[in-house]
């Protein structure tokens, strides 16, 4: 087999035993890699119905066939566990050296079972596995943990995925970080923390062979060259931060906890402003010829020295969404999240919930006492220092940070139970995962895509904003096309997330990002790597299968149609100003679109999957367990 070793490594933290599982080629042809394979490993290895923070929840890592080859942007891996935020599948992607080291060590995937009694890190040295004491790493930030392990093991080629202090304290919005990239969403850091696993370190020294290296080199070279042109200009120059002004113009830039869609200070937090004032260096993930990470540094003021890569999604969350117009504070907050090991999106949206709860008089200054401010502070929207401080308090579970560390769904439920309030109405999440940087009241196809998303409110798992923003459909109304569009865009995204390839390459194959433009080229890459005989249809099926295994996982964990919901605010409170003012996604609209979507997917009206559908996709064992 080319492109794969055929081997999955199992590691049990409870018994400190390891074993190797062999998978047949047919299994790889169905689950491929990335989020699909990681989710399938989770399906196979979880104790069904377990608490996400219990030993029965496995950590499942799957890399891709392109890792360790020159295929541009193919150095990515999938990470899956049951999410402590949603209780459903938590599938994340990260990239760079860690996954390539894993590939060279000879592993297609890793499954970590059980839980350790003492803090541990696992060192995978090619085919040797070592459990190492992690007590000296406790409290260290993510980047520092990686460096310390490299020094301890005496090799700068050792790559680690780590958790920061937030994961150690089981903060539910905690992330996993490797090579300064994050498997950011759905709370993986808390799962690792619950197992007392501080890091997973890998040294891989073997070479990677592919079926047809000359063909793969030529294809890769051409894509690499195309990736220097206009198709990636946005990412190379401003990065995803170019979105700030674009989305502000459309009136869908989340502002003050999604009370508004236009931020009057958008210019000050724009990609253009960042580039001019704070950008210090553009860097790439390993194996990426685009390079989109805009390293940005604060040079003056109280946050001088803070430095991290700035992307749009963390920025809207801690910026406009908290009313913050000072990029220096936003960089500092994201720096705290990145080094502390937290999802800046969920952190920012949970903070904005707390700010609104304060402005409505439910929280008072007293609620915000901490070591830094013993008398408390007043977190009005726009109070940048309050956002910085709250991020630190969440990371450390200090004061009210202990409540906010639970995420907006649990925090609001707890406050409402204790105080008889209705703060859940402005808790912006779907299935427990905080909403991304697009206000879906002005993007109705996207609203459907988010509602039915298997991991909650995620812009990466559905590209349904595309037809809305491009004007292919009326973004303010619904019609009978939306079910098919939501299916088509989520499965399109899932192809990239499964191979996995970074979506930023999507225009570099032929100039067109659609299936017709990309799938034939991707089929060639797959075939040159593996020696398989994939065509357009086979590539297209990758996405449907990926979504199906994730949905099947959720159904087995108790999903029902009611779980495909939207935040109350998006369904009942129209925005008052801007190009998207006056719209909500009504109950009728949402339920109508859900009907259309389930029908397009070939599912029942209840959103369950017929047996014959699963069998046709090659998932007989899944059909037996959850098919109807």
């Amino acid at each position, binding site marked *: 087999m080319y492109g794969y070793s055929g081997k999955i490594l199992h590691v049990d933290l409870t018994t400190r035993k390891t074993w190797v599982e062999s998978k047949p080629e047919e299994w790889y042809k169905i689950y491929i890699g990335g989020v699909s394979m990681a989710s399938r490993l989770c399906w196979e290895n979880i104790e069904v119905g377990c608490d996400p923070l219990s030993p029965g929840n496995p950590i499942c890592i799957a890399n891709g066939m392109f890792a360790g080859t020159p295929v541009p942007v193919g150095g990515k891996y999938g990470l899956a566990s049951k999410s402590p935020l949603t209780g459903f599948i938590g599938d994340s992607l990260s990239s760079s050296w860690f996954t390539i080291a894993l590939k060279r060590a000879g592993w297609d995937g890793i499954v970590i079972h059980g839980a350790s009694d003492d803090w541990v890190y696992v060192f995978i040295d090619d085919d040797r596995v070592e459990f190492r004491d992690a007590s000296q790493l406790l409290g260290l930030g993510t980047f520092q943990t990686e460096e310390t392990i490299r020094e301890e093991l005496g090799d700068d080629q050792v790559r680690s995925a780590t958790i920061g202090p937030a994961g150690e304290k089981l903060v539910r919005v905690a992330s996993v970080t490797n090579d300064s990239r994050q498997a950011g969403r759905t709370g993986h850091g808390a799962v690792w923390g619950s197992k007392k696993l501080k890091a997973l370190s890998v040294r891989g020294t073997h070479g990677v062979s592919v079926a047809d290296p000359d063909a793969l080199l030529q294809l890769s070279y051409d894509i690499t060259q195309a990736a220097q042109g206009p198709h990636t200009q946005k990412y190379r120059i401003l990065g995803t931060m170019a979105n700030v002004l674009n989305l502000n113009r459309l009136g869908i830039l989340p502002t003050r906890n999604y009370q508004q869609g236009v931020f009057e200070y958008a210019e000050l937090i724009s990609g253009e402003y960042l580039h001019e004032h704070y950008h210090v260096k553009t860097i*790439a993930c390993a194996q990426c010829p685009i390079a989109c990470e805009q390293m940005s540094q604060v040079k003056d003021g109280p946050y001088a020295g803070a430095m991290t890569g700035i992307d749009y999604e963390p920025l809207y969350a801690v910026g406009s969404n908290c009313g913050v117009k000072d990029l220096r504070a936003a960089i500092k907050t994201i720096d705290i999240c990145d080094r502390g090991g937290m999802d800046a999106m969920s952190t920012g949206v949970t903070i904005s919930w707390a700010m609104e709860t304060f402005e409505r008089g439910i929280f008072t200054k007293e609620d915000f006492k901490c070591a830094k401010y013993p008398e408390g502070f007043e977190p009005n929207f726009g109070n940048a220092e309050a956002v910085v401080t709250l991020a630190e308090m969440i990371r450390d579970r200090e004061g009210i940070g202990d409540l906010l560390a639970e995420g907006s769904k649990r925090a609001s439920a707890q406050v409402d139970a204790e105080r008889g309030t209705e703060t859940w109405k402005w808790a912006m999440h779907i299935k427990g995962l905080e909403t991304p940087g697009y206000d879906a009241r002005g993007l109705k196809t996207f609203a459907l895509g988010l509602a039915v998303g298997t991991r909650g409110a995620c812009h990466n798992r559905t590209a349904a904003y595309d037809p809305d923003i491009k004007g292919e459909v009326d973004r303010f109304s619904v019609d009978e096309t939306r079910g098919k569009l939501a299916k088509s865009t989520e499965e399109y995204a899932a192809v990239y997330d499964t191979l996995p390839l970074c979506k930023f390459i999507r225009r570099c194959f032929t100039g067109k990002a659609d299936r017709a433009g990309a799938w034939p080229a991707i089929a060639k890459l797959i075939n040159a790597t593996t020696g398989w005989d994939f065509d357009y249809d086979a590539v297209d099926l990758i996405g449907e299968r990926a979504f199906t295994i994730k949905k099947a996982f959720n159904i087995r964990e108790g999903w029902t149609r009611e779980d495909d919901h939207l935040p109350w605010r998006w369904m009942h409170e129209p925005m008052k100003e801007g190009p998207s003012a006056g719209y909500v996604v009504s109950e009728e609209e949402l339920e109508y679109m859900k009907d259309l979507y389930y029908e397009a997917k070939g599912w029942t009206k209840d959103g369950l999957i017929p047996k014959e559908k699963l069998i046709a996709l090659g998932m007989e064992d899944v059909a037996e367990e959850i098919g109807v």
Partner: protein
Amino acid sequence: MPTSTSKYQYITCDPTKCVGCQLCEYICSYVKTGEFNTYRSRIRTVRAEEILITAVACRTCEDAPCVIACPRDALSQDPNTGIIHVDANRCDGCAWCVEACDFGAISINPETKTAEICDMCEDLEDGPQCVKWCPKEALELTTPDRRAQRSRRKLAVEEVLGR
């Protein structure tokens, strides 16, 4: 800080352009070993700090310390190109050359136990493959003299035209 005094060409990296993608390592290891393995690359990327990234290959030093250090006379320097040649029959992988190199540009192949050093792909028509592949044009085949000339020109333009 060690500097090369070379009159010869070598592959140099502009750290302001390098993004750390490692494509140079992929292509080098494939050209030299037939498989993709950045461990076996003769050019190595370095990320010393979060925003400090560069790549290093043989700097073709004059009176090359690696040649002098070799106890078995396995290393020799081509007087025309400066390229260090390794006689695989003589090299026993003792790694004295690795220690002698101030640039960390030599490694020992763990399987063949011989030293591996950048040869600028001298046998290939289109020259060093890492330079050809570098997506950011950070790599260049040049000499210290040529770099100095360019620096002087750049300085002149900056000082006179202020751009």
